[in-house]
C-alpha cells in the first residue's frame, strides 16, 4: 500500500521538514523543507556556504539538526546517527572517494559485509555477484577482480555507487560527483543515474555546475544563506532565475575589458623543457597586462609547467625572461617568492594552513618583509591583510577566523590574497576556480584581471574551458609535456577551443 502511494508521489521517499542548524551565532540552515520522490533526481545548487553540505550532513546523519525532522517513507530517522540513516536506505557518495585502492573491486564492494562459506571468504561468489551487478548497471568496462587503483576516477565512482546499490539504497546523495570527471565521463554518470531512477532509487545531486544540474534533475532547489531561495520543477526551469536566486543581489556578472598598459614584453619563456623527449621546448611571450590560459588533458603537463616556472623543479632546459632579465633553467629556483608567485592546485593539501587564522594564511609567505629584526610588525600585517580581505571580498567573521571554517570559495580567495600580496609581476595560478561557486568565481576572475591590468602577467591553468575564455583570449594547449598549439584570437569560441583540446 505504502509502496503504491510512494510510486504515485503522494508520500515522498524522503522528506526533510523545517530543519534548522546553527553553529554558534552562525545560522547555517533556517527552517528548510526538502523532499525527494522515488525514481527522481532532485538537484541542489547554491554558493559555497549556502548550507548544501550541512543539509547533506543532516540527511545522512552526520550532523545533528537543532530542530526539524528527516523521514524516509514517512518513518522518522534518528538524528545524528549515520547508522540509522544507512539502515533506512540513505547513502552518500562524497567527492573524495572512499574506496581502498589496494583492494580488488569486489573486495571494496563487499567490504565489511563479506560472503563467508565454510568459515572462508567466498571470493568466487563475491566476484560473480559484483559482475552481475556491474553489468546490470551498464558494465563500463570494469573488471570485478582487478585492483581498484587501476580504475579511472569515473570507474571508481561507478563502483562506489554500485556499492550503494548493492546495499539496497533508496536515497543516493551525490556530493559534487562531477568535480573530478571529464565531459564523457559525466554522461556515463548520468546514464547510470537514469538507470537507478528506473529502479526506484531517488537521487540528490549536488553540484556547482548549473548546466549539469539542469540536465539531470527533475527538480532543483536553490539554497542561499541557509534558506530555500527557489524550488523549480523540470517543466519550468529558468536559468537566469536560478542564477539570480543563487547569487542574490550582491554581485552580478560583469565583463571587464582587457586592459593593456603598454605593449612591451613583460614575460617570455624560451624553449622550456619539461622532459627529454621534447626537442623544441615550450616557448611563448606575454605582453604586460596579458593572461595566458593553459589547457590540455589531465597529465598533459599543465601543472608541471607552472611548478617549473615557480621554481619548484622539474625543468630540464630553456630559459625565461622577466622585464628583460634572463634566467636559465637552473636559476628558476631563485625566482621563488620574488617576482613570481604560484597558487597550487589542491588548496587544502598544498595551499592552506587550515588551523590558522585568515590573517596568518594571507601573510605567511611575506612575513620577512612585514617584520623588523625578525619581529613581526603587527600593524603592517593588520593593514595589508585587511586590504586584501576587503579587496577580494572574503566573507568571514573577521581576520581571526580559522580558515578551516570558511567555504571553498572563500578559502580560495585567502590563497589568492597570499599569492597577490607581494604584487608579483608573474602570477602562476593552477586551477584557481576549481570548486568555487558562481559568485566567488566572478570575484576571483575580477581580482585576477585587475591585478594583471596593473601591468603584470598571469598564467592560468583550468580544466573548465569556459573559465579560461572568461579570463583570456590566448590559450596554450599542451600535450605530453610539450606545446601542442597556441591559440590567440580576439573572439575565442568555447566550442572551437574544446575541439582543439579534444584533438590534442
Amino acid at each position: 500500500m505504502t509502496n503504491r502511494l510512494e510510486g504515485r508521489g503522494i508520500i515522498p521517499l524522503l522528506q526533510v521538514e523545517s530543519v534548522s542548524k546553527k553553529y554558534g551565532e552562525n545560522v547555517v540552515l533556517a527552517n528548510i523543507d526538502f523532499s525527494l520522490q522515488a525514481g527522481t533526481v532532485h538537484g541542489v545548487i547554491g554558493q559555497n556556504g549556502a548550507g548544501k553540505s550541512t543539509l547533506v550532513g543532516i540527511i545522512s546523519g552526520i550532523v545533528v539538526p537543532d530542530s526539524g525532522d528527516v523521514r524516509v517513507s514517512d518513518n522518522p530517522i534518528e538524528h545524528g546517527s549515520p547508522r540509522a540513516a544507512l539502515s533506512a536506505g540513505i547513502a552518500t557518495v562524497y567527492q573524495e572517494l572512499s574506496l581502498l585502492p589496494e583492494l580488488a573491486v569486489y573486495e571494496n564492494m563487499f567490504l565489511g559485509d563479506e560472503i563467508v562459506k565454510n568459515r572462508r571468504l567466498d571470493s568466487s561468489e563475491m566476484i560473480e555477484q559484483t559482475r552481475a551487478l556491474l553489468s546490470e548497471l551498464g558494465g563500463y568496462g570494469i573488471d570485478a577482480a582487478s585492483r581498484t587503483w587501476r580504475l579511472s576516477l569515473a570507474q571508481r565512482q561507478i563502483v562506489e555507487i554500485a556499492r550503494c546499490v548493492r546495499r539496497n539504497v533508496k536515497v543516493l546523495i551525490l556530493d559534487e560527483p562531477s568535480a573530478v570527471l571529464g565531459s564523457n565521463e559525466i554522461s556515463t554518470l548520468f546514464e547510470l543515474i537514469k538507470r537507478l531512477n528506473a529502479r526506484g532509487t531517488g537521487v540528490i545531486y549536488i553540484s556547482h555546475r548549473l548546466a549539469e544540474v539542469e540536465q539531470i534533475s527533475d527538480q532543483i532547489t536553490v539554497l542561499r544563506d541557509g534558506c530555500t531561495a527557489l524550488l523549480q520543477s523540470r517543466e519550468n526551469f529558468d536559468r537566469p532565475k536560478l542564477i539570480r536566486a543563487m547569487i542574490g543581489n550582491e554581485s552580478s556578472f560583469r565583463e571587464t575589458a582587457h586592459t593593456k598598459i603598454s605593449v612591451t614584453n613583460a614575460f617570455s619563456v624560451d624553449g622550456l623543457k619539461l622532459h627529454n623527449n621534447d626537442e623544441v621546448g615550450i616557448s611563448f611571450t606575454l605582453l604586460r597586462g596579458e593572461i595566458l590560459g593553459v589547457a590540455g588533458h589531465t597529465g598533459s603537463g599543465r601543472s608541471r609547467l607552472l611548478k617549473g616556472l615557480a621554481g619548484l623543479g622539474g625543468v630540464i632546459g630553456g630559459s625565461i625572461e622577466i622585464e628583460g632579465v634572463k634566467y636559465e633553467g637552473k636559476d628558476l629556483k631563485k625566482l621563488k617568492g620574488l617576482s613570481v608567485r604560484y597558487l597550487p592546485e589542491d588548496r587544502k593539501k598544498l595551499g592552506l594552513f587550515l588551523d590558522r587564522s585568515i590573517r596568518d594564511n594571507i601573510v605567511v609567505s611575506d612575513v620577512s618583509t612585514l617584520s623588523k629584526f625578525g619581529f613581526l610588525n603587527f600593524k603592517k600585517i593588520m593593514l595589508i591583510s585587511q586590504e586584501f580581505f576587503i579587496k577580494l571580498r572574503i566573507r568571514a567573521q573577521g581576520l581571526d577566523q580559522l580558515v578551516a571554517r570558511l567555504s571553498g570559495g572563500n578559502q580560495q580567495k585567502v590563497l589568492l590574497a597570499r599569492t597577490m600580496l607581494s604584487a608579483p609581476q608573474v602570477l602562476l595560478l593552477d586551477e584557481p576556480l576549481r570548486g568555487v561557486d558562481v559568485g566567488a568565481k566572478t570575484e576571483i576572475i575580477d581580482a585576477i584581471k585587475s591585478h594583471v591590468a596593473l601591468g603584470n602577467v598571469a598564467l592560468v591553468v583550468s580544466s573548465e574551458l569556459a573559465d579560461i575564455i572568461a579570463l583570456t583570449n590566448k590559450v596554450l594547449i599542451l600535450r605530453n609535456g610539450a606545446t601542442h598549439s597556441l591559440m590567440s584570437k580576439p573572439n575565442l569560441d568555447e566550442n572551437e577551443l574544446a575541439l582543439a583540446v579534444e584533438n590534442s
Partner: protein
Amino acid sequence: MLIGHLGTRRLNGKNLGTALKINSLVKSSPLLVAPLLGPFAVIVVGFLFASNFFSVGNFANLSRQIGFLSVVALGQMVVLLIKGIDLSVGALMTLAMVFVARNARETEVDPRLLITGALFVGVVVGLVNAYLVLGRNIPPFVATLSMYLLLNGIISIWTKGVPSGEVPQILKQLGATKVGILPIPTAIGLGLTICLAVLLSRTIFGSWIYATGQNSEAAKIAGIPTGLVTILAYVICSVCAVIGGLLLSGYIGYVDRYLGQGWELDSIAAAIVGGTAFAGGRGGAFRTLAGVFTIAGISNVILLTGADRWLRFVSTGFVIILSMVLQSDRIKFAKNII
C-alpha cells in the same frame, strides 16, 4: 572613599571589556583554557590532602621541579610543533651532566668552558637528529629513539654504571641560590617560557614553525625554508635538554646515569597536557608551562601525602588521557563546523 573608589573600579568599562574578552576567549577556544584545569586540580587536591602543600619549603621544592621540567618540556614542545618528537632528551641530559662532572674532576679545565662544551654537544646531537629526520627521511620517533639508545650506551660505558665525577661549584650555586623568592632554575624556566612565547607568537621564525608543523608541503610551496626550521627546532630542543640536565645536576649535587631517565616521557607528557598537538602545528609556551605544573605537581602532591609512589604514574597517565580526550573533542567540534 575607599569603597567609592572600589565601586567605580568595578563598573569601569575597561574591566568589563576585559571580562567580556576573557569570556569570549573561553567560548571560542576551549583549548586555551583546558590546560589551566590541570594546575587548578593539582592545587585543589594539594590543599585538601597534603597539609604542607602550601608551606614555604614545598613552594621552593615544587617551583624548582617546575623549573627543570619546563626547560626540557619547552624544547620538546618546539619539536612537537613541527610534527616531530625527541626521545633522546633524557639521555642527552645525563650525557651533559656526566660530561661536565667527569671532566671537572679529571681535568683542570675551567668549568665554564665545560658548560660551553656541553652546550656544544647539545647542538651536535640536535644537528644529527635533524639530519636523520631531514636528510635520511627517518621518522622522528625512530631517529631519536636510536639516538636515545646510542647516548645511553655511551653514558653506561663511560661511567661503568656508578655515580661519577664531581659537579662544579658554579652549577651547585645555580641549583641552590634564589633570586628574590624564586630558585634560579625556576627563574630560568620562567624566563625561557617568556622568550619562547615571544619567539612563537611575534617573530618570523614562530610563524614558520607553526606553518611547517601544520602542513609542511604547503609551507614549502609558500616559500618557507622548512628544512632550516626543522634543524633549528631539533637544535633548540637539544640545547634546552642540556641546560635542564646541568641545572638538575647542580641541584642534586652528584651525577649518575639514572638522573635523566624518564625525562623524555615527562617532557612529552607536559607538552601534551599543556595542549600541544601531537600532530603538530598547535601549542604555546605558557600552555606548556601549565602542563609542566600539572605533571610536576602530581608527583609533588603524591610525595607529600605519602601515597604509594607508583600512583604518580597512574595519575599522570590518567591526566594525559583526559587531556587527549579534551583535545579530540575540540577537533571534532572544528570538523563539524567545516
